[in-house]
């Protein structure tokens, strides 16, 4: 018997989300069980079954921590740019008028 992780999709444009697991002798049987366990009240319209041993993850999850300041990867870090650009344009205009 294998453990299968079950993923369910609520609607056509929804992402698959993990909803539980089943223990089954093979994937065909697993799908039948998953349907009864996780889709019996119309919770979704599609199921995925993945053998647990086929799922990969970092053994050392500390690798996923963000160690340093990564604000430059977010748009809010550049909010000032618009203001600065306007100021620069204004300055350029003034220089144009006086020069």
């Amino acid at each position, binding site marked *: 018997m294998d453990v299968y992780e079950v993923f369910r999709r609520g609607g056509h444009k929804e992402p698959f989300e993990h909803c539980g697991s089943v223990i089954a002798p093979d994937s065909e049987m697993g799908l039948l069980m998953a349907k009864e366990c996780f889709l019996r009240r119309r919770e979704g319209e599609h199921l995925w079954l993945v053998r647990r041993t086929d799922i990969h993850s970092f053994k050392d999850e500390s690798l996923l921590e963000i160690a340093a300041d990564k604000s*430059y990867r977010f748009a809010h870090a550049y909010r000032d740019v618009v203001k600065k650009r306007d100021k620069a344009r204004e300055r350029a205009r003034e220089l144009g008028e006086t020069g």
Partner: protein
Amino acid sequence: MSEALASLLTALADDELILGHRHSEWTGFAPHIEEDVAFSSIAQDEIGHAAALYSLLAQRSGGDADGLALGRDAAAYRHAVLCERPNRDWAYTLARHWVYDTADAIRLEALHDTADEDLRALVTKMSREERYHLIHADAWIERVAAGPVEGRMKLEDGLKEAFEEALGLFEPIEHEEKAVHEGYLPLPSSELARRFRELAANKLDELGVQTEIYSRSDEAAEFVASSSGDLIASGDEHAESQPERARGLGGRSGHHSDEFQDLWDVMTSTYRNNPGATW
């Protein structure tokens, strides 16, 4: 601040900035779209580390981080020559990535015991990212070394090129003796180099790549590899007095290649256009 600490911070920061800049040149051009993002992230990490180190230096000595990073003459930079070399091809880039991050891991491990408290905290932070960089570099060279033949041969060429100049990363920094004596650099560069050679020899053995990796042009910074992968290096304390500098050496005293001048022109052009501007 201690001139020895300033020298150490400058060498560390310049290494990270210049290699980060070279890495960033792959953005949009890496041979694999996901890797393009991954490698660009690593470039940002390295430049981020440089920024943190420059900030620490600026805090202590006045001045500002941007000015230190971009407002100096090319001859004032103290990174190893290896960091400034053009990317050449993906194989060389990977080989240098591996050489650098292996060397960096060894250096950071030693710096966990540095006498400066702020640097110590920064090293802890940086180590967490550098650990991932090394995992990334390892993963790549292991796969390329496993074949097919063309990629493996290119990697061997790249490793040969990178190893020839690796010793430049362990060239003594300015005021090295003082830095060791004052505890900022807990181990002398020669000991770090020894550790690097040991690790590198094991890795090459593990990859089973051709290990005739040696310096062509000189005896001052020779990496000789036996077929077992053992690297033997011969140091030379009188490199300064030699008419022709050993390949890959000189960076720690500001002797850089024309290739660095090209990099510097590009890297600092915006800053020079409007010094002191905030972005």
